[in-house]
């Protein structure tokens, strides 16, 4: 449990940072890989075990960090959207509408594409919640955050283990 606590704590932090506009614009897609590296480092400190991190350990910590970040990030995103009745997608809606209308597409296609997004935007503006947006945000975050954090975990293993030897982050599996 103590081993996975760092993934939970850092995942929570990453989930928060993902929805804070200023912090988000700082490093966007680097948040999760960095969180996974931090989780590995915190895990070493909390357990006092500074032996080389094994590949499975790095992968599990990275994936758990990503999962927690996805769950917390989605929750905060939906919660803030529910309160404010707006989010990034609503903000970018005007731009996307403009772009679609400028496309040399059939009018029918343009209308259908606009209607797809319009449904989501209208629901968010009126009720603060769209089931389609919530579902896509959750699935999207679960896949992307886990993947990015997994990559971060492996790179983190490499960084932290290189203190022990010249070999690429070798853990004694």
């Amino acid at each position, binding site marked *: 449990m103590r081993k996975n606590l760092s993934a939970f704590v850092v995942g929570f932090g990453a989930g928060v940072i*993902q929805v804070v*506009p200023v912090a*988000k*614009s*700082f*490093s*966007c*897609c*680097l948040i999760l*890989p960095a969180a996974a590296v931090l989780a590995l480092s915190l895990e070493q400190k909390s357990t006092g075990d500074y032996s080389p991190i094994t*590949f499975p350990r790095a992968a599990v910590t990275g994936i758990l960090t990503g999962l927690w970040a996805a769950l917390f990030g989605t929750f905060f995103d939906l919660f803030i959207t529910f309160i404010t009745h707006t989010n*990034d*997608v609503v903000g*970018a809606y005007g*731009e*996307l509408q403009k*772009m*679609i209308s*400028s*496309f*040399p*597409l*059939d009018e029918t*296609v*343009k209308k*259908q*594409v606009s209607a*797809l*997004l319009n449904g*989501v935007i209208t629901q968010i503006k009126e009720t603060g919640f769209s089931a389609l*947006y919530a579902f*896509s*945000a959750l699935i*999207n*975050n679960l896949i*992307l955050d886990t993947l*990015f954090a997994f*990559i971060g975990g*492996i*790179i983190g*293993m*490499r*960084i932290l283990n*290189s203190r022990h030897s*010249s*070999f*690429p*982050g*070798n853990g004694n*599996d």
Partner: protein
Amino acid sequence: MKFKFRLAIFIIVLLWYLGIWCEFLTMLWHGFAFTLPFLQIIYSHVCHQDPAKVIYFNGMHTFVCGRCLGIYSGILIVTIFFLFSGRLRTGARWILLSSFVPVALDVFFVKVHLYHYSKTIAFLTGFILGSVGIYYFYETVSVKIKESKN
């Protein structure tokens, strides 16, 4: 790592990269237009998509900012290299760590108004970080797979 795994990784990375350019791909096949709203949502979770920082060509824009585009371009280039070579040399830790420096410096200099945000600089710094970062990822995974076989 077997070629089929490297090919699978390459296809995933390529699809992700092409998604960034989906607005442009719509010109090739109008059916891509239906994916735009969903891709807008998907990429909004990995990039702030600041209109001042995304790349524009002929009124169309990428779904990620200059820096993220650089990162993913670096990842794609290294993935192509990895697809055909399959063997990566072990690099030193300082190279990996120093790949973060250009990004950090660029963000810092822009924030302290030493110079204005430049999409080119953002792209290049992102490219260095993305390519070096993913190189070390592939290298570590390759070594581990090789070890597990022995």
